[in-house]
């Protein structure tokens, strides 16, 4: 069953000559790890912003967990979690205070001014989550005192507190060192495996998409390719996903002389509005 359904999505920003997203269609199945890749300015963040209800669309239809993003935006927000491109924990507060505010905004618990005053269920949940991610010792530290990797882990904890159906990760490892990146992915893999959470990822670290069920490549606002990583590598004759990605962009991507992206729908669930010459 599709947990994300996007049909003919178009976004034209105010005063922009060209739409940033041009009639994009795709589906993501429940529990799927969906990697949404593309060069800068391709339309990734625009698409993810529309899917997470923070940006209005110009045309098209989008449903998340069965809810329409226009008429049922609150239900949509109830079922999604987001790790934003830029870390956005409140730096003046402690990590626990950030998580507490999140849990209360999502209606999980009535707000209490101190950690001790919160219900036992909340305290147990937060302590277990923090210890699993390996940040238990830093729970009550000010966010401004934590490293970038630690802050990202707490953002994951925060985003998962309300157990979303879909977790949107907008370049989640940007600015993290190799160890922190690996730690974060190990945890995210466990979340997906054990909780069945659907993951929608955008990233510039293409190796992070190697384990994805589907790789969807967007270029100049259109979906150029959507298929499993193995198929993408086979079609482009590349050993790694990164090689395949770079090879595709060199041949067809923005900055080349090609008029538009080479369009190909590999899974049959995805489209870029028109069929192109394929890979």
């Amino acid at each position: 069953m599709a947990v994300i359904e996007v049909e003919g999505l178009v976004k034209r920003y105010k005063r922009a000559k060209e739409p940033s997203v041009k009639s994009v269609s795709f589906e993501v199945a429940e529990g799927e790890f969906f990697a949404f890749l593309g060069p800068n300015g391709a339309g990734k963040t625009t698409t993810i912003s529309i899917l997470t209800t923070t940006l209005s669309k110009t045309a098209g239809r989008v449903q998340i967990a069965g809810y329409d993003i226009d008429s049922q935006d609150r239900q949509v927000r109830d079922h999604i979690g987001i790790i934003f491109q830029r870390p956005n924990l409140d730096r003046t507060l402690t990590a626990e205070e950030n998580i507490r505010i999140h849990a209360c905004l999502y209606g999980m618990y009535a707000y209490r001014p101190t950690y001790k005053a919160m219900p036992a269920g909340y305290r147990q949940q937060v302590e277990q989550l923090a210890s699993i991610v390996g940040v238990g010792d830093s729970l009550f530290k000010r966010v401004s005192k934590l490293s970038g990797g630690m802050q990202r882990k707490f953002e994951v904890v925060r985003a998962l507190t309300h157990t979303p159906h879909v977790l949107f990760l907008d370049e989640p490892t940007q600015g993290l060192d190799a160890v922190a990146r690996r730690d974060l992915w190990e945890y995210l893999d466990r979340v997906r495996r054990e909780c069945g959470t659907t993951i929608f990822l955008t990233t510039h670290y293409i190796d992070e998409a190697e384990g994805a069920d589907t790789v969807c490549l967007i270029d100049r606002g259109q979906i150029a390719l959507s298929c499993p990583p193995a198929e993408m590598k086979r079609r482009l004759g590349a050993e790694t996903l990164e090689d395949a990605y770079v090879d595709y962009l060199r041949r067809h991507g923005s900055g080349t002389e090609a008029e538009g992206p080479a369009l190909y729908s590999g899974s049959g669930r995805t489209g870029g509005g028109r069929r192109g010459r394929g890979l």
Partner: protein
Amino acid sequence: MSAELTEGLVGGPGRRGLPDTSARMSRVAREINAAVTVAARDITLTVKSPGMLAMSLIMPLMMMGLIGGNLMQNMAGGLSFGFGRFMLVGMLINMMFMMTTMGMTSLVDDSDGDYSAELLVSPVSRYAIVVGKIIGSSFMAIVSCLGVLAVGLVMGLTLEPWHLLALAALAPLMCLSGGALAMIVMGVIKKNKTANMAVMLLTMPQMFLSGVIIPISQSSGLLWLLSRIMPMTYCVDLGRAVVYAGSPEYDAVVLFNPAVNLACVAAITAICLVAGTVLYARSEKNR
């Protein structure tokens, strides 16, 4: 390990052992809880920022101690009522209104620090967020009011306990009014510097045109018109109507019937709150 992770994420049964997200609080309870949460966050931030607390206390010292004190000593001799009490009530209302208005710039601060994204993707109405912000901003206003009372005490100006209670009862409306007015600005401005400037332009003229420290009963022409369109005029006048009720100075001090003041404050607040929130929500989403 699996059970450990699942337990960490959940509190009850649902999808793969996860709780059903829709089966939490009722919608009304959730909205109230969200407003309380947003307010509590702002209050916590204020408490953790000694600079902000210091500013809340320095403001009354400057405005009432320096400007008001000077006026009281040099220009208030010919008035038919005691200027000290007139100014004390005006400054209390002014602080409730002005500090809440200024506190609302935290909405723009949140945008700058990307925190607003966390608020905007949460499944609560924009009104809950805005009302929470106004309540949170009111905390600074209350601290400033305590500063006004302390400065007043030094200047030998006091109010009866029941007058203080009456003003405390009016405080939520005054703060809401100031916060709602600020929303008109916050709805369209996204830059911190511009927002701070706009709020200053919104509040400073009102301090002089709304009769906070300078009586406006003799204003005419453009100044008369401006004083009548300033929302704070009705807030200050309502506060004075409560404090001066039954006193011989009432007619010289109070401009309008309290019912007119109340109706004007309520109407302006409602219009600003709705229009400001709609503008805020739209400007975030419609780009």
